[in-house]
């Protein structure tokens, strides 16, 4: 069997680099520096990627960004704005039933990107945090996304004395795979908990997570116990309903 093809590996590195920037664009020089490659090499890779539509150069001689063709073929790629549109009704219903704030998230590097946020239904003053980034390892949303995805690189910062270390997290993720839902207890903020479940697309791939968060007194029977099963069932039902909207479930 032949070994890995270096130019494909390099092309993949270039795409990953551009993907991390989101809407933001990079020049040949910036990419060459970041990947420690010669500029002509990077230029050649970009020209080839441009030909197949995987990158675009909006201005002749300017910076590069990911191309539209890439988005069309991504197997589990789902536009965050699309996910919000599909999740709208069911996240509202979840907020009404659980009486807690709802967030829908997708994995973005080592963070959870909040693509949708529904206020806790008590008309108190709250600020919309759509677009915010949450640490994956200290939230139920992040645990769900990583359990069904890839372990992101990076340090696991301790936010409270309850924030899990790598061993604790590995065990929690195994549990998440079995249960199909996850929770956090005082792991990001002392006194707060969260519950989340996976959203699946038509191929069964996990493309996002939906969950609730709030004070442990409301989410759990007691401050050191897992969350109340009634709330878990609401979260899981919401996740199933959004998955059904995405064609991920036939019922």
């Amino acid at each position, binding site marked *: 069997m032949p070994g890995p093809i270096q130019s494909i590996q390099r092309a993949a590195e270039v795409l990953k680099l551009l993907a991390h920037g989101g809407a933001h664009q990079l020049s040949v020089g910036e990419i060459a520096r970041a990947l420690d490659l010669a500029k002509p090499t990077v230029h050649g890779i970009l020209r080839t990627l441009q030909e197949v539509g995987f990158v675009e150069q909006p201005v002749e001689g300017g910076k590069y960004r990911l191309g539209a063709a890439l988005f069309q073929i991504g197997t589990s790629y789902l*536009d965050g704005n699309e996910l919000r*549109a599909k999740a709208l*009704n069911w996240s*509202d219903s979840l907020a*009404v*039933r659980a009486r807690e704030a709802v967030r829908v998230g997708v994995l973005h590097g080592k963070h959870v990107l909040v693509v949708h946020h*529904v*206020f806790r*239904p008590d008309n108190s003053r709250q600020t*919309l945090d759509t677009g915010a980034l949450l640490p994956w390892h200290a939230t139920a949303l992040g645990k769900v996304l990583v359990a069904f995805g890839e372990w992101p690189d990076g340090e696991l910062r301790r936010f409270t004395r309850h924030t899990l270390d790598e061993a604790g997290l590995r065990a929690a993720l195994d549990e998440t795979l079995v249960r199909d839902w996850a929770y956090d207890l005082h792991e990001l903020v002392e006194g707060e908990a969260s519950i989340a479940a996976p959203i699946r697309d038509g191929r069964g791939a996990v493309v996002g997570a939906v969950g609730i968060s709030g004070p442990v007194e409301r989410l759990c029977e007691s401050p050191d116990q897992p969350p109340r099963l009634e709330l878990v069932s609401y979260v899981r039902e919401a996740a199933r309903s959004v998955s059904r909207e995405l064609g991920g479930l036939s019922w």
Partner: protein
Amino acid sequence: MAYIAAIDQGTTSSRCIVFDQSGGIVSVAQREHRQIFPKPGWVEHDASEIWTNVQSVVRDALAHASLSFADIAAFGITNQRETTVVWDKTTGEPVHNAIVWQDTRTDALIKQLGDQDRFRERSGLPLATYFSGPKLRWLLDNVSGLRERAERGEVLFGTMDTWLIWNLTGRHVTDVTNASRTMLMNLETLDWDPELVSALDVPLAMLPEIRSSSEVYGTYEGVPVASALGDQQAALFGQTCFEPGEGKCTYGTGAFLLINTGSTPVQSQNGLLTTVGYKIGDEPAAYALEGAVAVTGALVQWFRDKVGLISSAAEIETLARTVDDNGGAYFVPAFSGLFAPHWRSDARGVIAGLTGYISRGHLARAVLEASAWQTREVVDAMNADSGVDLTTLRVDGGMTANNLLMQFLSDVLDVPVVRPIVAETTCLGAAYAAGLAVGYWSSTDELKANWHKAAEWEPSMEPAARARGYRKWKKAVERTVGWMDEDDD
């Protein structure tokens, strides 16, 4: 008896949504129906197909949540407004396809009827092709033998609420909100107006009885059918805008801003419509001012289907966020003229401010911003007519999922924009009105307590930038008018 089921008979599909007592959605079912285009400008629906779909979605919505009819305390109805059906009283067969609100076949008849404001004081409406009365008149004039049969009392007229209630319960009734869109009802008496009926030359015998929006009209499978509201009025009700001055804007294909004006109709000096907001049982009717924008979501659909730069409506936000502003481009989507407050049928769309700098991202921005600027124009007209400035805009509809648009809307209106926790306010309004009629909810106060903020966008635009943007928008609007000539089709 734990739930209320709302039937939403819309322009492109029929849906049934089951709600629980807190107003949460328990189940949804939806079926699209055919759009029939016999000629340019003509739009029809098959009313029998719609009735079949309604029965299916009711069945499906109950099945999805493992419910039976015994679990439903009442059905509520909300519907596409003004769409006109005539059917045989004995067989129940429609005599012709339903003529849809967008259909412009009555254009010549409207011109012949004279001055645009001729019926405004009695009906609250300007003479325009949307309303049902002229569509009914077209059927009477063009379906062979129909006028004679109508005079003999053999055929019945109705809007979609009436068609559904007749099929569901056997009664021939409509509600005040739907009746207020026929151009045949007197806004003060809330009854058919003899002068309007005679001006449009429509036999009184075929018109339904006008009832309130919230009362038991009859039963279907043993369940009371207990509300009917036109879709925009239902959204007003679902947003619990029960006090004068409270209003909402629903973003769908077009956008509709309605403001409750209390128990007296307010005549508009600024191109808005006067309409009935709702009437609960024997209580006095609540009136509303309405401003309609023809093209909002439809522009995003056009951008997706005809331009092809995005593959789903939600992706427009992704594309728009690739740039920081509109680059100077403004898009006025006067595809079929301008609605409120301009009412210029000779206008056609323009993209103004094009330079070599403009990219598809800028165009996506301009597409979204068009919805916000058009709302601003209607809000300005509302403020002028009502004498009170809007302090918060309550929004609903599919486009509220677009964060970029909602933020920009708040920026250009310079007021907070608030989305309630159930974005499906149209269905919720029909459910609320039905639930009130059967005592499932005790009062409008209880409904108000169900209303919760799901999201709020605060204005953050510099006043100078807002003023400059609005100035450019108005200049772009000026460039749309007078495009159509006498010899254009």
